[in-house]
């Protein structure tokens, strides 16, 4: 099945004051519940140097953010029927690997 990437990007939005480049890889097909997204971060748009990130996932229901704690620091999110009707949001920070 062909995937319409341009259509899928309609269902993604990126905001924030970050100074790194973020890429989201989609398997399946947004906006449907059988999709999977993997989030990557790089120093620059050339994607030569990846950086580690801390990531928290939220399910937005009725304008409220419900943290999905079991997915914390996992850069992959697998959608399910529980996500239907809601928006899934990832809050991403760069992680200092020196501790």
């Amino acid at each position, binding site marked *: 099945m062909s995937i319409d990437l341009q259509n899928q990007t309609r*269902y*993604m939005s990126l*905001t924030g004051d*970050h100074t790194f480049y*973020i890429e989201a890889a989609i398997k399946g097909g947004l906006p*449907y*519940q059988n999709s999977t997204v993997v989030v990557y971060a790089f120093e620059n748009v050339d994607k030569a140097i990846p950086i580690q990130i801390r990531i928290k996932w939220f399910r937005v229901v009725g*304008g409220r953010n419900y943290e999905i704690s079991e997915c914390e620091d996992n850069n992959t999110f697998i959608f399910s029927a529980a996500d239907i*009707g809601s928006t899934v949001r990832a*809050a991403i920070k760069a992680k200092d690997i020196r501790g």
Partner: protein
Amino acid sequence: MATISFGPILMHPEAKKEVHHLLLNSAEICNFRLLKYNGIYIDDGKSFENIIKFNGEKITFKFEDPKREDFSIDIKGTEGLQVKHSVKNDRDLTILFLDGYQQYNECAYQQEKPSLGEDNHQEDDGEEEAISFLDESQKMTPQLI
């Protein structure tokens, strides 16, 4: 910090077909609960008791909240679910199906608005404004990254 949002997430069209299959199987219908009703999400599913009656054509739900009326939904062939009797401003009914192994079965159904000819007897209980507010807040404007 960066924030990336996905959605709103919709049910896959193929999953809708599966819903119809489940609806016709009374054995599986017991694993069936509401996610959202009257524009309000039922976050933990505890606001409702599960189906209290299923006769092959109609499913009846019971509210745990005594202030709310029980309601039924009709099964009408391949058209899916339609609300026959319900509280006022019935809309955005989302139902989550569980399969026989108690796992999510990627099935839900978003109900269309009832026809204008429906007979609604429920008095206005003051919830309408709150429901409208929730509906507005749920509107998302997708943007390109």
